[in-house]
Structure formats: structure tokens, C-alpha cells
């Protein structure tokens, strides 16, 4: 299963039947309230029953993901960050060691090849470096077996996503 998760609408060519495209800008997703309910009350299920509960099972089940997000202060801007925060039901409260560091145990999360495209105007080299470090950190917490980061101006996003989607078909 494959997932394209974007913070903006994207005119995409026809995708393979096992690829889902999600435009976060069209969904109703509240921010995580840090209640730990998905760990300690209803394990694996968020207590906020909005559109996020349809997305994090897709994230967990996908072996290939493409995330598209505007960059803000070297991180994801609101729509993507909101969704990624709401995806913590895919993890357990319990801690394990990953590469000698403490991280949460995953539930049934398929190891994934991830491509993360960050976009924006006037992204400095320092901001790009922070974004790349962030995705490397995400890889440990989100079960990325491999990942690639691309940073680009907004005008280049559609072509870059089309190229990546075409490569998935190939």
C-alpha cells in the first residue's frame, strides 16, 4: 500500500490502485490535545473522532509514503504537523531502544520507504539543514526504513510530485 499525503491539492496523473492520495487541506483535523488516551484509555484509537482517524491507519499500513509540506521554521507547517501529531495512536506508550536511543514501540506499522518534499520561498540553507535533520529524527519515530528529502520552491512541487508518482508506477 502506498500513500501520498499533501498539505495542498495536487493535480496528479492516474495513480496505481494501491496508492491513496490525501489532501490534508480538505480535511477536518483538530490538533492533538496530549491526553494520552490513545495510549492509556483506548489503545490504538484517538479519542477525537475527526478525519485524522481515517489517515493514521493509512500511514501505518503503507510501505511507501510521500509527504508534501510547506516548511515553517525548519519543520512542517500546520496541516502536516497537525496530522503527524495526531498519528501517535500508531505507537505505544512503552519505550524501546532504536540505534541506542529511547523511542516508542510501534504498533502494526509497516516499515516504509519515505520521500519527504518540503517547499517554500526563501528557504535558507540553515532552514533546509534543520528540515533534513527533522526528517532523519522522524525516520526513527515513524519507522522509515529508507528516506529521501527534497526541498524546493512552491512552484516546483507539482512537477516533483508527478515525477515521484510516475516513478512509483514504473
Amino acid at each position, binding site marked *: 500500500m502506498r500513500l501520498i499525503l499533501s498539505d495542498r491539492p495536487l493535480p496528479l496523473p492516474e495513480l496505481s490502485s494501491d496508492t491513496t492520495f490525501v489532501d490534508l487541506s480538505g480535511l477536518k483535523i483538530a*490538533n*492533538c*490535545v*496530549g*491526553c*494520552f488516551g490513545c*495510549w*492509556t*484509555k483506548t*489503545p*490504538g*484509537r484517538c479519542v477525537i473522532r475527526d478525519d485524522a*482517524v481515517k489517515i*493514521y*491507519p493509512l500511514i*501505518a499500513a503503507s510501505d511507501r509514503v510521500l509527504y508534501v509540506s510547506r516548511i*515553517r*521554521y*525548519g*519543520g*512542517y*507547517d*500546520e496541516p502536516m*504537523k*497537525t496530522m*503527524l*501529531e495526531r*498519528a*501517535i*495512536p*500508531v505507537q*505505544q*506508550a*512503552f*519505550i*524501546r*531502544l532504536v540505534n*541506542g*536511543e*529511547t*523511542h516508542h*514501540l510501534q*504498533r*502494526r*506499522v509497516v516499515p516504509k520507504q519515505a520521500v519527504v518534499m518540503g517547499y517554500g520561498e526563501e528557504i535558507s540553507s*540553515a*532552514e533546509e539543514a*534543520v528540515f533534513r*535533520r*527533522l526528517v532523519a*529524527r*522522524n525516520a526513527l*519515530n515513524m519507522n522509515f526504513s529508507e528516506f529521501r528529502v527534497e526541498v524546493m520552491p512552491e512552484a516546483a512541487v507539482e512537477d516533483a510530485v508527478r515525477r515521484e508518482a510516475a516513478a512509483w508506477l514504473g
Partner: protein
Amino acid sequence: MAGIMILNGSPRAPRSNSKKYAALFAQACPAETVYREITRGNHGTLCREIEGFSDLLLVFPLYADGIPVTLLRFLKALEAAPPSPRLTVSMMVNCGFLEPGQNDTVVEMIRLFCEKSGCRFGSVLEIGSGEAILETPFAGMVRRKIGKLADSIARGTRRSWKVTMPLPKRWFIRASTAYWESYGKRNGVTKEQMATMEIEK
């Protein structure tokens, strides 16, 4: 312009660990402090109020390796305001992992916010094992570091510290497992239920 605004950026601010850390900072600080929490509706009020302060201390948890959305939204509003170039922004961030260095990336994010908004980047305290450390015999270690942070901000110096439980990782994992097991038990949920591999089932 004087004094320190302590701003809690946790999404569960009224019952957060960040609130406890903020209270310890206020107790330790030789300068005047004011404590505020971010809500969806108070961005404008906070941006105006910050104008009256020389220092802003952001206190927040690490969320998905970055700035919690609650705080991110506010920072965007503050950048648009924009803050006085004389404002110095310091931070105290906590993560539930043992390694306080897991906060390093978010420190760089706040530094980037300062660059973009034109204010000064100040002092930093990174806390590891931040979910539980205040309930352990190691709480004094955090208090001492918070005291140093408070002195640093009050004196206008820029320093950075890290603090965590001085435990071997295996011991920390055992202790955190017991902590979360007890958390679930209070909700009538067993360790086995908490460890389910199912998602949305």
C-alpha cells in the same frame, strides 16, 4: 520594557508538565515573571502583551520531533505582529525520552523563528525524561538547572543546559514501562491492552 513572560506552549497547558516546569522557573527567577497559556483565541492579546516584556520564555513539550502545533500557530501570529527586536526568546523544552538531545532539532527551529521574526535568541534548557522526572528523586537536578536558566535570563546572558535522569537506558525503559503501566491501570486498562498492535480496531 522589563520582566519575563513565561508562555506555556503545551496543548494541554492547564494540566501539563510544562506548567509545573514554568512554576519552578517562576519560583527560582530573581526577575519579575508573568505566566500565560496559549489558547486558540488569545494570540492577538498575547502578541500585544509581549510588547511590554524584555524576555519571553517558551515552555513546551517536544511533539513529533518538533514544535507542538499549539505553539507553532502562535509563533506564526507573533512573527506577523511582529515582536520588538529587543525581545529575547529563551526556551525550556521537555521530551519523554531519556536523551535530552532529542530536543536539539526543535531548539534550532526556535532559533530560526527568532531569525525570521527579528528577535534575539536567548538561553535554552533541554529536559529529557520530562514526563516523569519531577516525580522521581532526580527532580532536584531539574530544579537546579531551572535555577541556572532563570539566573541566565535575568542577567541577560545566553547559555544552554541539558538535564535528564542519570539512569542506564535499560533501567530507564523498565522505569518508564512501570510508569505507563500504572497510568493505564488508573484508567482500567492493562499493560497487554496498552501494547495492542491493532490500530483503529
